């Protein structure tokens, strides 16, 4: 069975927010209608986004890591948001594992957003329906797009290619390989939601220099430094040994 998902590589994500606004831009003009923004030019503007990047610091100066953490619906294999929906608007697709909301059925009761431990569902305050990442379901199967572009908008946009897309149930997919080889992990597995989306951790590259690597025989100083020669008058071993 297919389970589509995003794998996000925190080792290269620079927190640029391209995935945030390209998602908004694609989806606001999508089949579900506009994603609204309240007070867009006023105090405390707030709008509907399917994907946000949080930035936080880990550790204490100077051993600080600044982490950029993009987060959208994780398309859990056991999504707690689905069973709580009183109208059946929130559902998980059998064929590809995408969790979707049927806006025609949604009554905006917000049960699902309370149930979601990841805080990725956002009510559209204008339409009063619950919205969330659709994995760009309107792109990925769209035969009118060239095949290379049948990918989520955020994946296409991401300048660092930190966002991989594919079937986590197919062991040969790029996402499964990345999870396997780069230590991919799900978010808060203790909740038992089995998120389909995974994250790849930071990795460090170091350089070890051995003391004796610093100076080599072909050191240019040997050429450039006119090493002082001892005075001819100085005594030498040569003068005093006779055997």
């Amino acid at each position, binding site marked *: 069975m297919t389970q589509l998902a995003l794998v996000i590589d925190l080792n290269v994500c620079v927190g640029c927010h*391209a995935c945030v*606004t390209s998602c908004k*831009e694609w989806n606001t003009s999508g089949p579900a209608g*506009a994603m609204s923004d309240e007070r867009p030019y*006023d105090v405390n503007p707030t709008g509907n986004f399917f994907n946000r990047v949080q930035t936080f610091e880990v550790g204490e100066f100077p051993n*600080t890591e600044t982490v950029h953490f993009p987060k959208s619906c994780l398309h859990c294999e056991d999504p707690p948001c689905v069973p709580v929906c009183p109208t059946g608007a929130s559902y998980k697709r059998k064929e590809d594992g995408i969790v979707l909301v049927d806006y025609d059925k949604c009554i905006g009761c917000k049960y699902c957003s309370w149930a979601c431990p990841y805080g990725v569902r956002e009510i559209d305050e204008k339409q009063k329906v619950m919205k969330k990442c659709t994995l760009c379901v309107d792109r990925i*199967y769209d035969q*009118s797009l060239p095949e290379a572009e049948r990918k989520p908008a955020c994946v296409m946009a991401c300048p660092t290619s930190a966002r991989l897309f594919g079937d986590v149930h197919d062991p040969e997919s790029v996402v499964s390989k990345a999870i396997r080889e780069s230590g991919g992990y799900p978010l808060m597995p203790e909740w038992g939601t089995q998120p389909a989306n995974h994250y790849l951790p930071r990795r460090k590259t170091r*350089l070890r220099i051995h003391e004796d690597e610093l100076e080599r025989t072909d050191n240019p100083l040997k050429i*450039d430094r006119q090493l002082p020669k001892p005075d001819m008058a100085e005594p030498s071993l040569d003068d005093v040994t006779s055997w």
Partner: protein
Amino acid sequence: MSAAVAPEVAPAVQEIKKTTCYMCACRCGIRVHLRDGQVRYIDGNPDHPLNQGVICAKGSSGIMKQYSPARLLKPLKRKAGAERGAGDFEEISWEEVYATLAERLGKIRATDPKKFALFTGRDQMQALTGLFARQFGTPNYAAHGGLCSVNMAAGMIYTIGGSFWEFGGPDLDRAKLFVMIGTAEDHHSNPLKIAIAKFKRNGGRFISINPVRTGYSAIADEWVPIRPGTDGALLLAIIHELIAKGLYDRDFLVRYTNAGQLVNLDDKHDEFGMFVRTEVPQEEACYDPQNKLWWDRISNKPVITHSEGADPFLLGEFVLSDGTPVKPSFQLLQERVQDYTPEWAAQITGIPVDVIRRLAYEMGVTARDQQIELPIAWTDSWGKEHDTVTGNPVAFHAMRGLAAHSNGFHTIRALAILMSLLGTIDRPGGFRHKAPFPRPIPPCARTPTSPLAVRPDTPLDGMALGWPSDPDDLFIHEDGTPVRIDKAFSWEYPLSVHGLMHNVITNAWRGDPYRIDTLMIFMSNMAWNSTMNTVEVRKMLNDKDEHGEHKIPFIVVCDAFQSEMTAFADLILPDTTYLERHDAMSMLDRPISEFDGPVDAVRIPVLPPSGECRPFQEVLIELGARLKLPVFTASDGSRKYRDYPDFIVNYETEPGSGIGFLAGWRGRGGEKFMRGEPNPNQWEMYAKNNCIYHHELPRSYQYMRNWNQGYLEWSQRNRITRYAEPILIHLYSEVLQKFRLAAQGKGISRKPPEHLKQRVETFFDPLPFFYEPLETQLTDKHKYPLAAITQRPMAMYHSWDSQNAWLRQIHTYNTLYVNTQTARLQGIADGDWIWVESQWGKVRCMAQHSEAVEPGTVWTWNAIGKAAGAWNLTPEANESRQGFLLNHLISDELPGKPGASRVSNSDPVTGQAAWYDVRVRIYKAGAEEAQETSPQFEALTPVPGMKQRPTWLAYFGGGKIK
């Protein structure tokens, strides 16, 4: 995969048009998807070399720029009797705009053209704006480089003949070690993101040296926090270590730099500190004649450099047969860095000694032991054939963190020298040039050298901006006083190659060096974030003389958006957005070249202009014709170019030169490139080719271009450079020494006025040295212990994006980041309101604790704070109530010596605005105080013609909202 589809929709995309992004200066290729004529989606053009299909947060939010309610849609003039700054305007017609300007500017031009000043922001059309100014005859023209990063351009171009960003960059494809120093998350945007990610995936090691760990630094393998303004000390200590350990690329230094050249050390001599030359007379030109000497190790006597079979000493001292004492310049460099030990630098930078040493060793050992050999044959300038191109895979990138200090020029010289010692210039895995660079040191363009170049009804006799190579190139009066309003190219800032836009308003207001009549500003927010000392500058803009006349009589602002600046205009010209205009990212300006060859690009409108907007280019061409500026006028006196596209196609730098704004598809049928007759179908050809022209050089011309015979001849044939002489790296700068000699009274060149002698002598040191930033030297560091800087976030560019409904949700206001310990010592909790105070002013803002900033530094995001009501935000918007502008704390001038005039708060070599030098203290705001940013300004109101700002937004591109 299953063919199941989501909810039914009509096919989403109806039309795709390609053009070039302008949400920042990176200039990615974009595809604009239109539905029913409205923008539905903007994505990256996969066939574009720069961004290869990706796009950033800004580029993805172009829709919100296009339809922003802050757009200016009508030409406006200040209402009679209204104060400047109040934003009280009335609509006028374009005809009235043109008539007003033609009359006013015509009079200025007929009498004293320098009374017209044109200054522009990050406009990407300096080739045209510069041409207009020159044709008008005014010397008073520049773009924003003096504020931005001129130190980076000048420091590197005067050393290696090229610079970072548009002109060159790190070759991360091949690098093994990447050191980023003083770079926030811009400069470059997408190309650098693409490259860093690939580099990391390929196992490269990435070190970031920065007071702050954000953006790109976040994913560095190692973060080395450093105190602002001390990078020069670090770089010099690294140079010290590399030389001490012999970790320099000797072969590279010998052949490709002036390391082995002998310097005259006879201090009685007029040529003291200059390279000794052979007697061969050389034609005067802007290249290094190959007539200097080495001391040959083999024959142990002086020989002409690059003599067959010779090999110079790099260290030592010698005496010429005429008794002149000489030393190779490398010896002088070694002497210079003798005391710049890691121990010394550790005290200054705050970086531990062992880390400084390790940085040096990592660089040196990687460069030496991981050398790359590419099987590319090439011939050097001295005719020697090489079978391979060698690379030492250590790459650097640096930007404003180094540049925006008053010691930035020498810091950047130190960086360029470090890169050269490692042997990384225009080599794989190191730094690589982008056309039109490398150029001679310095490049050939010169300003005029006397006020006689400014004459009524006559174009300026020379360029408004150029590259001085000695004191005789300065643009000054007989008595040494400046000709330009910003005092660029004067003894105060001799190498101010980008001008000093940041001093224009102050100087014009004070009438020092003179009064002007009309100040025209194109897309620069000089009443806010593109100015220092903002509170006072705003007063100057509205200040009047004893007759009640404005001290700056007439201010014209062209911009697409209502801003703090437009409020001060007498005349507002509504510009188009990037989606509504033609543009040329020209080889004559700052093209988007790649390492492998020249690339230029265009914009082609995808939407009609909104309201009555007109592109500024059209305004210039119309004005040019009305003022009868020669270039814009046909021989019968009629208008020469129909419009901007027509100008781009048909303009040639000289009649028949075959060089125009665009390098691609020249010649009648588009069969030529770089040079060729105008091609009437050039725009169509760009349109068919992703809006770019990319000329990929043969592999043998892609490296070692400073000394690559084939490349240099190609470049000369195509008129990119005038000469094909090798461009030796200036470890030791004779250009600087010439100014120093003049200050010492030596030689026959012009001499600085008395009060500037010491300044010139000190700062025109032929070798880099470290000094505390000038403002720091004038600051009581116990009273103002902290350095305050800004960084630019990735999701915003300059002040351009607060009117963007999506981007402002990412950065709605800015706080001051303070190291947690530093804050606690002051009793400042996370989120507290505090005062930040410098010697020059104070600002109230919110503090935010951070572990990702060095304890002696506080910082904030650049240009998010706005004046109330500007950019058509409500006066209550967070940008003005919680957001703040650090510029209020930064002075535009520093006290000069007693009795002398004040000098710009700038680098004394280049005039780069030193806006990262400011020192501050912080303390908690009183509990009774308003929880609001201070200072506040009277709220601006929307100007006529602007759209109403909606209280809700539900953008749906084309068609109906469901």
